[in-house]
């Protein structure tokens, strides 16, 4: 077990190095010149050159890459070029807003989709099942943007149930006043694909031998479904939720941009527009690390859920 963990962690290093190189060269080679962005519109070439020097952009690329890697090792990313905020502070202040929206979305989506999918699997092939499956196909074919535009217009503007947009300093106010509308819309959008996915997981399980055995010994269909199938289908469901975990940190940037939520997704968008390399690099590395850790966590949880799984 310990050897397995050590090897998995060791294997992350080349991937992380690849991410470092990709982000470093992609933005430096092709991105907009950050000095140009930071300087005012009518800055003289000399002023731009001075900003370049100040940011250390005139150093040879290996020196800049060295600073980047040093930042990863020490977790000290320095300050944002645009706002002079330390990166640690910037992320710590933006993360709560993102989590206030993304955590409820993930939890609600999973908790609502599992019973619906189980019900559909129970009633598979019936008219209800087919009607709902067609319904989800139609729901899936409508753009996320349409849900957001229409939802904001109807619930926020016309009916006035929710504020159209906004954010406050109090987590509680955010959670009960400003987050519900974006959460509701995102859950609506996420429900169709999740239900379809979980239904297919359940149906996959229904084809296995243990289900036939359970039926053969006279168990009722609900007992088979809730007791045997649900437990076994938890493995792919867990995988799916686990792999969604890194995503909740960067958040749905579309929702954050649309509803003006000061979260990490919006910050990344701003950083890219301003060529704010320290922010871009820090967020990318964190998300890459979390993605890899989530993968590891999912593999470890297989073992916890299913003792037959052998970790290699």
């Amino acid at each position, binding site marked *: 077990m310990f050897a397995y963990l050590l090897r998995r962690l060791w294997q992350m290093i*080349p*991937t*992380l190095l*690849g*991410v470092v190189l*990709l*982000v470093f060269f*992609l*933005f430096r080679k*092709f*991105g*907009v010149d950050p000095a140009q962005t930071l300087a005012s519109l009518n800055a003289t070439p000399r002023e731009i050159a001075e900003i370049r020097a100040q940011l250390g952009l005139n150093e040879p690329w290996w020196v800049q890459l060295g600073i980047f890697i040093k930042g990863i090792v020490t977790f000290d990313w320095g300050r944002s070029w645009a706002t002079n905020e330390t990166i640690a502070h910037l992320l710590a202040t933006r993360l709560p807003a993102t989590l206030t929206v993304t955590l409820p979305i993930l939890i609600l989506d999973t908790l609502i989709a599992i019973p619906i999918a189980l019900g559909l699997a129970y009633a598979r*092939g019936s008219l209800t099942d087919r009607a709902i499956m067609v319904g989800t*196909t*139609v729901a*899936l*074919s*409508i*753009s*996320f*943007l*349409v849900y957001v*535009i*229409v939802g904001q*217009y109807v619930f926020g*503007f016309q009916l006035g149930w929710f504020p159209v947009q906004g954010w406050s300093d109090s987590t509680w106010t955010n959670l009960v006043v400003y987050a519900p509308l974006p959460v509701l819309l995102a859950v609506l959008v996420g429900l169709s694909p999740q239900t*379809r996915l979980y*239904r*297919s*997981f359940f*149906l*996959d399980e229904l*084809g296995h031998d243990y289900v036939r055995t359970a039926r053969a010994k006279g168990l009722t269909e609900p007992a088979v479904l809730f007791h045997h199938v649900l437990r076994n289908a938890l493995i*792919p469901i867990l995988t799916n939720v686990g792999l969604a975990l890194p995503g909740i940190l*960067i958040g749905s*940037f*579309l929702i954050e*941009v649309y509803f003006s939520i000061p979260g990490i*997704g919006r910050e*990344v*968008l701003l950083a*890219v527009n301003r060529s704010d390399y320290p922010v*871009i690099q820090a*967020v*990318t590395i964190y*998300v*890459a690390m979390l*993605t*890899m850790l989530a993968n590891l966590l999912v593999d470890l949880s297989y073992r916890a859920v299913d003792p037959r799984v052998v970790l290699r």
Partner: protein
Amino acid sequence: MSGAPDFVSTAMTSTLTDPLPMRRADGVWRSAWRRFRRDRAGMVALAIVLAYALLIACTGSGLLARHWQDEVGVPDAPPSFLGAAAPDLPGAAVPASPAASVAANVDISDVDPLAPRYKEWNERAAQYHAQSKPIAATLPFGGDRLGRDVLSKALKGTQISVSVGLLAAIVATLIGASLGALGGFFGGWAGDIVEWLYNVVTSVPEILLFFAFAAVFGRGISTLVLIMGLTGWTGQYRQVRAEFIKHSRRDYVRAAEAIGASAGARMFRHILPNVSHVILVRMSLLVVNFIKAEVILSYLGLGVATDQVSWGTMLLESQSDLILGHWWQLAAATISMAVFVTAFSLMADAWRDALDPKLRGQR
């Protein structure tokens, strides 16, 4: 999870009896088509997709919606079935003040130094014909803020959005399938390198890749295609790699190796036809995903250029239209997109069922 399709047994028997590999592939596809034809929902979906293809061909060749950029109606012209808007616009209803118009008409020709040349100028001006086109008060499905016909825009937008999705899916499939074939067939250090690339690309947040590639290629259709192709190949890679790993150990491939088939021949002549349906089904899913991604990217300012129209730019414009109560642009974009994407998804589902009868009726 998409299941493991398995045509190997049929493929093998026909290898023994039939020396022509092309005929063998035909059989699989023809029987799939026979199964597909029995699927009524699939056939309806196929008919809708073909109708869209016809419309797109007409729009692309300029038969339809060629003049989508012309201002043919009043700004925000309502749809014809609603009737013309009441003239309650501020500004349009305010009559010019009489005092001002009198003051402007005082004859000052005896002090005006330019007065002797007015006649000559008027004659010259008369040589140019200014044509003012009649502007419609209503349009079949309404107009946008600039008075452009929403129906033409929707046609043109359909053409752009669908071709972007299709082309991006082709690019992603080419990248993903060739890398997957490479990694799955050879394994070893080549496989490790490809797998490393996959890990790196999937670890970077998508939006960062989008932005970085957008910075490289600039704005426009080809950018969109490249962005989505270069970031969206990973799913296809994963699946093709798994298929190639599975197939490269099968007896029919070993047999091909034993009679001296080269690695390339085994990959492309023997394995590829047996996994092509997996690639196609995955590609059709990509088309749908990319069409939806185009909308989001357009909203974030990474979409098609400003002088072009797509479902994404239409939705972007409709956001401000809606607040004024002008819902038709939103409706046109949403309906044309929803019908196409639904039909395409249903067609892809039917296709998968037909190509993979073992999974039939399961999802």
